[in-house]
């Protein structure tokens, strides 16, 4: 008897949970109500089966539980009953399968008016590419990928010249415009998922799968990688912004075409040196840093990292948090640099300065630090040298007090919390593994030994 009540309780819990739990699909933001409908149909068909079958089970247990003198009925089989059950089950299956296949036919057939956008995945970062005015994406080659050409476009392919490159993981789309996403991976499997869009598809190196959708609701949505891609899989995040056409075009105009990237002038060290005069007041004439002024050493850092941070300070992505007093000092300084070229120049100048030793001020358990650093080295390199493709700066030789403070800032959401700082967001997610200050000291102490 107890078991009949037990199963009844489980069925009631299941039904109540279904209707009362706060967790259901996120509000739809693409033209895929048909997918939600197939889910609803499946819930209704299977829900009826779930309740009917378990209800029958409960009744049978109560009615035919053992009592004194009871004897089971002897009936090896019933062809008629089995046929009926087969037919009814088949009808139920067809009721779910037919709409499912009909919707699938729509999912795989891209409408003619779909605009093409390429999604590029890599460990652990998203980039995007629009085909430009010719509507054709230029050819790419893994072997051409460098820090200046991260997507590996062929410089001599005319179709690629007007391609617009979005190398930070924020993609904007025009509302009510169908898009065909062509999916490309530089390294391992990834999966392009925006939960509000419902559809998703893997990225595979060496292949170009696709998925299409029409965004129907303005907003800012998370891109999640949903195919395990290594230790920072959970930190491979991006953003999709769905907006009106005018806003989209403004946004897109802010990004260079491949031809513009190729034509970019080499930074001039002389101009950079002139701009650096302001910086040297705190960071020192040769970029050696000054702990008393909370100014970290700059030498040894890659120019692309310096550029990104200067841009972040200038545009308020970094240093705007009320808890970041030292970052707040830096923000107006970065604003002094008039344009992107000025930033590139000063970054190139700093990178050209000879590296110097930093003073070690932090000690800790380096053995434990080394173990923690196992996670870090997938981006920052086993020697802490930094890896351009992972967007990860050098750590080796950096001021240890500065590293410790930044890790603390990431952990507390002082740095990397700005919604547009998606590079920083990755570090806030990863730094969650440092559960206390001792862990930070240990890993920084280990970095000191590199």
């Amino acid at each position, binding site marked *: 008897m107890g078991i009949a009540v037990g199963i009844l309780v489980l069925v009631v819990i299941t039904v109540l*949970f*279904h209707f009362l739990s706060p967790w259901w699909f*996120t509000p739809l933001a693409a033209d895929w109500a048909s997918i939600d409908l197939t889910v609803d149909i499946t819930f209704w068909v299977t829900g009826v089966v779930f309740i009917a079958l378990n209800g029958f089970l409960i009744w049978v247990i109560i009615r035919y539980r053992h009592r004194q003198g009871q004897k089971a009925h002897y009936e090896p089989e019933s062809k008629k009953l089995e046929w009926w059950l087969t037919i009814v089950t088949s009808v139920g299956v067809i009721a*779910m399968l037919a709409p499912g296949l009909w919707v699938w036919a729509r999912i*795989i057939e891209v409408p003619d008016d779909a605009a093409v956008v390429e999604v590029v995945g890599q460990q652990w970062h998203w980039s995007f590419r629009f085909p430009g005015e010719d509507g054709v994406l230029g050819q790419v080659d893994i072997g051409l990928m460098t820090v200046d050409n991260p997507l590996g476009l062929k410089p001599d392919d005319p179709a690629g010249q007007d391609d617009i490159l979005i190398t930070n993981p924020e993609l904007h789309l025009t509302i009510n415009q169908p898009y065909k996403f062509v999916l490309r991976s530089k390294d391992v499997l990834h999966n392009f998922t925006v939960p509000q869009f419902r559809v998703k598809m893997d990225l595979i190196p060496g292949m170009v799968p696709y998925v299409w959708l029409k965004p129907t609701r303005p907003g800012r949505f998370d891109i999640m990688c949903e195919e395990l891609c*290594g230790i920072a899989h959970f930190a491979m995040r991006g953003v999709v912004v769905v907006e009106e056409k005018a806003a989209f075009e403004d946004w897109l105009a802010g990004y260079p075409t491949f031809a513009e990237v190729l034509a970019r002038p080499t930074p001039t060290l002389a101009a950079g040196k002139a701009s650096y005069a302001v910086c040297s007041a705190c960071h020192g004439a040769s970029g050696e840093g000054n702990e008393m002024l909370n100014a970290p050493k700059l030498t040894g850092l890659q120019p692309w990292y310096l550029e990104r941070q200067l841009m972040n300070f200038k545009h308020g992505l970094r240093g705007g948090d009320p808890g970041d007093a030292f970052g707040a000092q830096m923000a107006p300084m970065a604003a002094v640099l008039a344009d992107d070229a000025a930033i590139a120049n000063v970054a190139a100048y700093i990178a050209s300065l000879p590296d110097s030793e930093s003073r070690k001020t932090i000690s800790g358990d380096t053995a434990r630090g080394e173990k923690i650093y196992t996670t870090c080295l997938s981006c920052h390199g086993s020697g802490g040298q930094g*890896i351009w493709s992972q967007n990860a700066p050098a750590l080796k030789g950096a001021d240890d007090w500065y590293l410790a403070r930044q890790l603390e800032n990431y952990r507390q959401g002082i740095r990397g919390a700005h919604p547009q700082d998606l590079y920083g967001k990755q570090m806030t997610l990863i730094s969650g593994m440092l559960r206390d200050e001792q862990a930070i000291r240990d890993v920084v102490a280990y970095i000191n030994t590199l």
Partner: protein
Amino acid sequence: MAYVALADRDHEQHLHDPQTFVTKYIWSQDHKVIAIQYSLTAIAVGLVALGLSLIMRLQLGFPDTFSFISPDEYYQAITMHGMIMVIYLLTALLLGGFGNYLIPLMCGARDMVFPFMNMVSYWVYLLSVIVLCASFFISGGPTGAGWTLYPPQVILPGTPGNNGGIVLMLLSLVLFIVAFTMGGLNYVTTVLQARCRGMTLMRMPLSVWGIFVATILGLLAFPALLVTGIMLLLDSVLGTSFFMPALLSMGEVSEHSGGSPILFQHLFWFFGHPEVYIVALPAFGVISDLVAVHARKNIFGYRMMVWAILAIGIISFIVWAHHMYVSGMNPYFGFFFATTTLIIAIPTALKVYNWVLTLWRGDIHLTVPMLFVIGFIFTFINGGITGLFLGNVAVDMPLSDTYFVIGHFHMVMGVSPILVIFGAIYHWYPKITGRMLNDRLGRIHFWLTLFGTYAIYLPMHYLGILGLPRRYYAMGDTSFIPDSAQAMNAGISIAAFFVAAVQLIFLFNLFWSRTRGKPSGGNPWKATTLEWQTPQTPPVHGNWGPDLPVVYRWAYDFSVPGASQDYIPQTMAPEDVPTDPGSSYDGGEGEHS
């Protein structure tokens, strides 16, 4: 069919006699001892995997607390948990354990037909477990690529154990497959060649049918995994490019070019999907026997049950790409695989109906094994239903790679077969040891396990519908995951620790009852099948004494009208059946099959 009477002869029997302690319990060729060796090893390594799942749940439930779990360790834990549970626990326990114990006894054979190979099978299996566990102790640790071991990442930096752990994992799998093949050939040959007189195929208990067909599936599916493992090993160690395309790893162009990662997925799932049924079919078979014995009623629709097992076995080879709907394979495959996948639901649903219809108009004894049977029917209905979501390609789109998938396969492939295994252990323990397991502890174990596991997995489905991705070390801040989801994750973790602790009751019961349990006698459940008719309990080496049993009827003559007791053993000749005076006993099924 040709009946091989060799083992009937008296002098043959002595070939099976063990000589010393070592040949009796260590290098044993007795299928019953090998079964216990397999089972204990599988349970031991399963406890390791259970421990790994607790590490996982600590991290997911309390993501800011435990400093000993880094992302590397988290991914290593999920990988080893999955692989151990699927291969080294479930496959080994259901086939190596139950298969070994039950096939010769239920078929009326003295042993497996190749006892020496059977012994080697176990020792190679043990070696595969040791090699696998060795990866915990090497530099870099075990692989953390997820149990599906997808290339390219599995052998690239950025994945834990990408050069050491993965090599040991693949070697261990190769060894496991060698062990399985030796065991599997034995099970199939024994079923086909060593059944006793009168045991036709259509009189075999469904446990044997389930294990038999599952073994055939294994013999056809594991070679796919074997070649895949060897090819991946070559990619990893020798730098070939079976599965490795040109790619950029850590800022440098790799040496590989031209390989296909999706080829690996096809090969893996060509093994991987039949593997689901390699676990499920023995469980289906065992449930069918348990439900009949404890409801004192013949299994409903025996022939339909056999055909359903065969149909599921065959169709299971053409559904594999339903694991790959969002893999980037040719999207037109979706139509075919969604259709085959939903078709396989039909024979599976019929099996569920027939279990419930066996209870219908039965005489249901709510013993501990019966409780587990009913618990299984409930969890399997639940897990089967969510399979209809994921098998239907369009419905799968929003749910693939989320917690919904985790909930589904733990319900259908974790909880359900584990409940069957528990039920089967409560059922056959008296035959194995001669003593009953403690009934009260068994009931406590059942109730807490059933409700505890449901508390773990039911909410996961809804977190998955919300969009929580699986294999995330931490969710962090998103625009769509509310704080309540994290609270639920903490709750799920608490339920998981609770369920894990409850299993200690079961382990205690296993050891305590071994010496203190109530003596059971030879046939405590009044069952009909041959293993309950052995002259000794536990059965001695050779199982049957001088004369092999002779079978007169199917395995399900319960509550036959006119018979004076509610079961007729398979070995009872029609003329020996005691009948009620003046009744219309017609001999049961034995007369007309």
